[in-house]
């Protein structure tokens, strides 16, 4: 079928299956025709192609392979001596751009269906029972279900959560020695993304310089070499790419400090090291001024400053939204010192913090929901068990007295005589009653249906129940029949039910009868289906009567 096509790329001297020919890449498909012939022998829509593969660099044969969704693959051999590599790469790049566009459209649905069937074995069984055996068509089966999944998908896309940044991402790079005085840094896209999000200045530099001035590899090499990255950020004044970044960071840090923290409960300025000397506790007077800091203190403070700056940047990057949102949305802005001011938001936050600090929920008065007490008139009804009131045989007081005296007489001369407890005939009759098949063991022979019926028949019965339930649900949901669509559906479901009964139920019944199982296991199923038939006939009658 010829959908509108314009040819995007033509590559001559491409062999396929040992035949010379030409490869054409069009807007919606890729095709190959042999030399000299007009028609295409091989043609694949981009939508059908799952992926492409190329032969590795060193090989003599320069090939491109297309793998389709169905599993089959087609290989093209670029045989032009001079330009084979270029041709192949050109074809590959074009395909790389085109394939993603078509991929998503066609097979998302199919993949979704496959996924659903794989995840839910009950659904899979239902599918097998109903669709594969042609009781209902596949569209009807998926009609209800796919609707749900597509709405889920849509909403989940909108609420995708952002991935945060690990504070240790720089430390995780973990350089390895190269063997000869060099260091090898492994950078992944995650780390690069983290660097860009945390230090927007670096991102800016990257955008400026790559790929015009430097390659990516060079950029990163310079980055790691520069003192910007290393611990001791002593600006040597070299014309370093990143010295500007360092200056920007200093500025940012200063503005962050100036802004301070919004929480009125936290007073950062009172946290100062006021020590006499190492290990000597704190000084409660005015602290010594900055001038008498030792060299070691200076370098320590530089590192601490770096740490604080790094943590602040990581937090800021996490709070900053991915898309530049409007000013109204930014609640905790300017934590990186570089963006908007937040004075307008100060009062509400302060109030909330104060409120939190003052009040404790537990100490509030209990204001639970008002309840009504239970008032019972007659308690004794509960204490009477499910023992139905039977008439006991009431003994008269005379009876009582006589029986008590009788027993007292008997017991007064009681002497245990354990050698003559019972006669052997009594004992043996008791034993026969207790042996298997005896009078007392009768109820044991009565086995439940679940013990009599083999497991595979039980599971088949369960599948039948699920399938019948599904069909009946569709059937009963059509009533009351208001629209012509429902009318059609009712008629269709009726025929489906009949088909189900003939293709599934009757063979099953035949099978169990052959196995000499006496109970009719599917009587309930037949009842349900019969009820559906009755309803259908009644509805049909009423419809015919209305028409006349």
């Amino acid at each position, binding site marked *: 079928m010829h959908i509108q096509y314009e040819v995007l790329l033509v590559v001559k001297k491409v062999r396929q299956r040992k035949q010379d020919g030409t490869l054409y890449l069009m807007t919606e498909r890729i095709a190959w025709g042999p030399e000299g012939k007009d028609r295409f022998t091989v043609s694949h829509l981009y939508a059908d192609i799952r992926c492409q593969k190329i032969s590795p660099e060193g090989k003599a044969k320069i090939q491109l392979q297309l793998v389709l969704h169905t599993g089959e693959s087609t290989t093209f051999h670029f045989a032009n001596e001079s330009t084979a590599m270029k041709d192949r790469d050109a074809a590959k790049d074009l395909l790389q751009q085109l394939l993603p566009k078509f991929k998503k459209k066609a097979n998302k649905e199919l993949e979704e269906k496959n996924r659903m069937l794989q995840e839910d074995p009950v659904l899979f069984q239902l599918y097998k029972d109903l669709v594969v055996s042609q009781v209902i068509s596949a569209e009807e089966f998926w009609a209800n279900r796919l609707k749900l999944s597509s709405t889920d998908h849509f909403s989940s896309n909108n609420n995708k959560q952002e991935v945060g940044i690990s504070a240790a991402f720089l430390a995780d790079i973990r350089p390895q020695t190269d063997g000869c005085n060099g260091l090898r840094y492994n950078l992944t896209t995650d780390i690069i993304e983290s660097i860009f999000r945390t230090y927007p200045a670096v991102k800016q530099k990257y955008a400026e310089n790559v790929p015009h001035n430097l390659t990516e590899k060079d950029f990163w090499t310079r980055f790691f070499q520069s003192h910007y990255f290393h611990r001791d950020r002593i600006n040597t004044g070299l014309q370093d790419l990143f010295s500007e970044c360092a200056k920007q960071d200093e500025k940012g840090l200063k503005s962050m400090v100036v802004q301070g923290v919004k929480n009125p409960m936290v007073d950062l300025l009172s946290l100062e090291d006021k020590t006499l000397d190492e290990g000597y506790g704190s000084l409660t007077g005015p602290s010594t001024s900055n001038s008498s800091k030792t060299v070691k203190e200076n370098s320590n403070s530089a590192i601490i400053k770096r740490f604080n700056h790094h943590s602040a940047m990581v937090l800021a990057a996490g709070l900053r939204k991915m898309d530049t949102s409007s000013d109204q949305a930014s609640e905790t802005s300017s934590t990186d010192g570089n963006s908007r001011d937040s004075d307008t938001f100060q009062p509400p936050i302060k109030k909330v913090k104060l409120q939190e600090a003052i009040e404790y929920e537990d100490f509030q008065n209990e204001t639970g929901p008002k309840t009504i007490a239970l008032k019972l008139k007659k308690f004794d009804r509960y204490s009477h068990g499910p023992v139905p009131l039977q008439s006991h045989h009431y003994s008269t007081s005379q009876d009582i007295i006589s029986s008590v005296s009788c027993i007292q007489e*008997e017991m007064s001369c009681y002497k245990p005589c354990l050698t003559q407890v019972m006669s052997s005939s009594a004992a043996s009759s008791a034993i026969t009653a207790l042996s298997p098949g005896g009078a007392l063991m009768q109820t044991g022979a009565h086995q439940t249906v679940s013990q009599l019926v083999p497991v595979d028949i039980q599971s088949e019965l369960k599948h039948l129940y699920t399938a019948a339930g599904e069909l009946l649900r569709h059937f009963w949901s059509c009533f009351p029949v208001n629209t012509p669509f429902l009318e059609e559906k009712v008629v269709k479901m009726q025929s489906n039910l009949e088909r189900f009964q003939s293709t599934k139920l009757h063979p099953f019944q035949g099978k169990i009868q052959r196995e000499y199982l006496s109970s009719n296991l599917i009587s309930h199923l037949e009842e349900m289906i019969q009820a559906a038939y009755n309803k259908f006939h009644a509805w049909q009658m009423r419809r015919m009567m209305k028409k006349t």
Partner: protein
Amino acid sequence: MASEDEISLLVIVVDVNPIWWGQQGQRQPEFTLSKCLDAVMVMANSHLVMTRTNKLAIIAIFIIWSFIFFSHFFDSRDEPSLGSSDGKYELLSVANDLIAEEIKNLMARTQVKGHQTDTLLAGSLAKSLCCILKKCLAGQDMKSRILVIKAAEDCALQYMNFMNVIFAAQKQNVLIDACVLDSDSGLLQQACDITGGLYLKIPQKIALAQYLLWVFLPDADQRSQLVLPPPVHVDYRAACFCHRNLIEIGYVCSVCLSIFCNFSPICTTCETAFKIPLPQMIKPKKKKLKAAN
């Protein structure tokens, strides 16, 4: 075979309701209380000799007027004071003598008071659970079970207490077995079902000893290896509060949870008013009458 450390405690609760037994003695002279006690003693002795570590307790329950119980623990480690007269294992002779004597005392002290003839079953079960617990707390862990030999009928008034006792026994993993001589007892059927014990109604009272030895002597572990009478189908239906009929489908008040067999607009226990929404009456469509002529 149980390991040496495991102690198995059997508590036998015997119904010695004098009124029932007196009447029984008149009805069927060959099986009287003496014969019953003999059978129980045989059972008790057998239990004690099964394993050295087995323990035994016997409780005789009494009727509702006098709260006289008799309970005693027999332990193989007790030092018997007397030797036995007929060469029997001392523990057994001590046990038998003690039981006989106590029963005689019990019967001698009986006095007729009032008209009630019911057996105090719930109370005695509670007492036996207490004994078991006392022994458990004192010493090592033990597996205990209670064997109830019941003669007279059930008393409906003891229902709540009885159910509480059953659930307590279930919590403590104590089996309750029941051997019923005369009429089926729904309460004991429930007890056996809930705790996992055996319920048996004996067709022939004379062969009581045989039934006891065959069915109730093995303990819980051994019973799984034996072919014993199958469990009875227990009727767990609730009884309605108005007529005390056993019903399968009924109406339950959502406020006080009382069960009724018929719908009534006011619950008689808590006096809440209820309404059942009736299906809506469909108004018949008025057909347009064509004007005559």
